[in-house]
């Protein structure tokens, strides 16, 4: 029995040490790999100072919002850091907690999958060595430990190591940032050329997943955002994603149940929820390659409606003479490049 106990305690110790070694290796590699952010939107989030308006969600808000209109309306720098719906909600929240600064205003038009999905997609995990390294690094120690053990694989670890050894990694990241900056200076990614649908085999309601059951992470997310509001003086506005298609929503008594449930959760935590799903719901002729990607004309209409809703909710134009986002971004990039 004594030997068995000795064996088991050393097994637990060996397991813990091994897990920590893997975590430290992953931390070491990814922190080097993200020294220059992978994308322009991540660069904006890390390097443009507050006060600013930050739009964060999945790709629906990379296509479906015109940040320039918001910047014009509120006289503040606006950065659109929306990227991909495959990013788990808790990762989104951890990144916001890490990079949101006092004085920032957050606009969160999360896709419905954020409310209904509770998985870590393989696609997301496979990009944590590089593209999504900032998401990984934003997590607290024990969450990173759990992520490494439960989701990351040895392939991810070796990918991170290989990227670490690449001499041109930072140059590649700089080149990407500059290329994206020249095309989409505020971080959005509008591209009306993407008109070929690759979701024609799935109907809109199934694709956007607005009919599922709310996951517990949403309440946790609301609590974290509430803390940001009270402790860091950050204003948070939750709104709804842009969608284009037909029969995308299954309404009950003229209301979308999941939106009402989400509204209740956020409002309970003192977070403003602005607008209705109908404000950003467009006909199928505004759809690009997926139901969550709308064209720029829909984005324009949606943004104007959103600006109105934000004003109604109390967001006021900034009286201060703030610099334009592009100027701030260019300065930040110049500094980053000249940093040792």
């Amino acid at each position, binding site marked *: 029995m004594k*030997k068995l106990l*000795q*064996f*088991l*305690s*050393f*097994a*637990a*110790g*060996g*397991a*813990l*040490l*091994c*897990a920590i070694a*893997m975590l430290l290796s992953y931390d070491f590699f990814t922190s080097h790999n993200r020294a220059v952010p992978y994308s322009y939107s991540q660069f904006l989030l890390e390097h443009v100072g507050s006060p600013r308006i930050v739009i964060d969600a999945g790709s629906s808000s990379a296509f479906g919002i015109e940040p320039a209109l918001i910047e014009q309306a509120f006289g503040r720098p606006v950065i659109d850091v929306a990227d991909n719906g495959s990013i788990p909600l808790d990762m989104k929240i951890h990144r916001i907690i890490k990079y949101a600064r006092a004085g920032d205003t957050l606009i969160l038009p999360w896709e419905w999958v954020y409310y209904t999905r509770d998985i870590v997609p*393989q696609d997301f*995990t496979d990009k944590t060595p590089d593209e999504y390294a900032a998401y990984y690094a934003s997590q607290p120690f024990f969450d990173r430990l759990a992520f*490494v*053990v*439960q*989701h*990351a*694989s*040895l*392939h*991810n*670890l*070796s990918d991170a*190591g*290989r990227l670490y*050894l*690449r001499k041109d990694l930072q140059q590649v990241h700089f080149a990407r940032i500059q290329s994206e900056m020249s095309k989409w200076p505020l971080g959005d990614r509008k591209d009306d050329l993407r008109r070929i649908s690759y979701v024609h085999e799935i109907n809109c309601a199934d694709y956007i997943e607005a009919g599922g059951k709310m996951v517990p992470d949403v309440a946790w997310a609301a609590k974290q955002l509430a803390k940001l509001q009270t402790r860091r003086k950050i204003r948070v506005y939750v709104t709804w994603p842009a969608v284009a298609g037909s029969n995308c929503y299954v309404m009950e008594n003229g209301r979308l149940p999941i939106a009402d449930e989400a509204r209740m959760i956020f409002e309970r935590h003192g977070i403003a929820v602005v607008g209705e799903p109908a404000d950003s719901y467009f006909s199928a002729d505004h759809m690009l390659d997926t139901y969550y990607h709308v064209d720029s004309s829909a984005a324009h209409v949606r943004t104007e409606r959103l600006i109105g809703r934000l004003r109604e909710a109390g967001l006021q134009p900034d009286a201060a003479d703030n610099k334009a986002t592009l100027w701030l971004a260019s300065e930040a990039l110049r500094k980053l490049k000249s940093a040792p």
Partner: protein
Amino acid sequence: MLFVTREFLLGFFPIVMGAFWLALVLDLRKLLIPILLVASIVFYAWGNPAQTPILAVSILVNYCAGRAMMSLDPLLPRRKAVFVATLVFNLGLLAFFKYTNFISENLAALLGIQAHHFGIALPLGISFYTFTQIAFLADIYGKGQQQRDIASYGLFVTYFPHLIAGPIIHWREVMPQFEMLGRKDSLALGSGAYASLLVEGTCLFSIGLLKKLLIADQLAVFVDLGYKSVPSLGFADAWLLSLAYTFQLYFDFSGYADMAVGISLLLGIRIPYNFNSPYRADSIQDFWRRWHMTLSRWLRDYLYIPLGGNRGSELLTYRNLFLTFLLGGLWHGAAWTFVMWGALHGAACCLHKAWSSAGLALPRPVAVVLTFLFVNITWIYFRAPDIHTANVLLQSMAAPDLAAPARLFAACPLLIIGAIIVWLCPNSQAIAAMDWRGRVALAGALSGAAAITAMIATNTSVLSPFIYFNF
């Protein structure tokens, strides 16, 4: 089923161990062999049930032939006829599944006609279970050995730790152990002897798993990448590629062998080791005493010696030696690259024999380096998709330039770690068999580390099959 999948580590193996221990606790020892037999069949059939009947037919034919030979007078010609017929059956089965396309392609090339590709899938482990059974038959025929229990025989062939990629066990090694399992005085769950086996088995399994997942699988990425672009590799990259495969193959195959021996020890059965630090060999002969030891033993006992061994003239001995390696090469796969690999090793063995016969010797460090370099170069033929690719890679290795490695530089840290383990650390069986105070603690720590590594490795849907599963 692979040893490094969740279905094996979290499902199959715990269930088998649970059933095995339960039978021991309840003193239902008669169930131990059936439990292991059923487990082995499930292990084999998992994922490829269509190939299971081929294995079953092979076992039945060999068992019946063995029974028939046991019942016949050794002097009767019919006994020889049964032996020869079964040998033809075994080799025919192997030839059909493994060499049909190879023969067809070469015949077509010879005749200048279009080759027909037959859609024949190679049954997993066929090379291994065929050799295992040929040895059994040869011993019954030549040495008059007896074996009547079909369950034990079935288990001997299908025993899951070794079934798919060896070690090639000899029935004399395991049958007595299977019989012992049924005896009350053999294996007791709480006994010191079994505890020692558990510690050794856990150690070996964990080391094997870590070797496979942390080194072999990581090197595989570079090897696959390198072999996709052989013509564009420079001198340094070509050398790195060859070294990466040399280490990948060792850590993959010896990792599998360690896991196989370790699993078997947990079940109270000791199967032979397959490796003994082969890259420390100081001659090609020494290498084959340390690499895939059970295959070398099989080839010696059932091919080299029946061919005449060293009983004839010196020339015949060289011929036998060369033929043994040539056929050993062909056993690995139906391709000219394997034939070339076998031929090179055969020629090297002949050369070494002549060298030693002349009383010549090199200082050991030089001999080790030379042997390693030779083995490293010949592995190129073993891995390359064709002879031309292998030759292109060798040409790059023989054309020095000062350019830094561009593609495979990132493999260097792993190669350094691999080299330290291969040349400076005690090998896995030495670690597992160490008789010192911290043995239990070491086994515990290794198994914990292996469990976490396996968990992390299996967080992806990308499979990591063992290289020798292809043979």
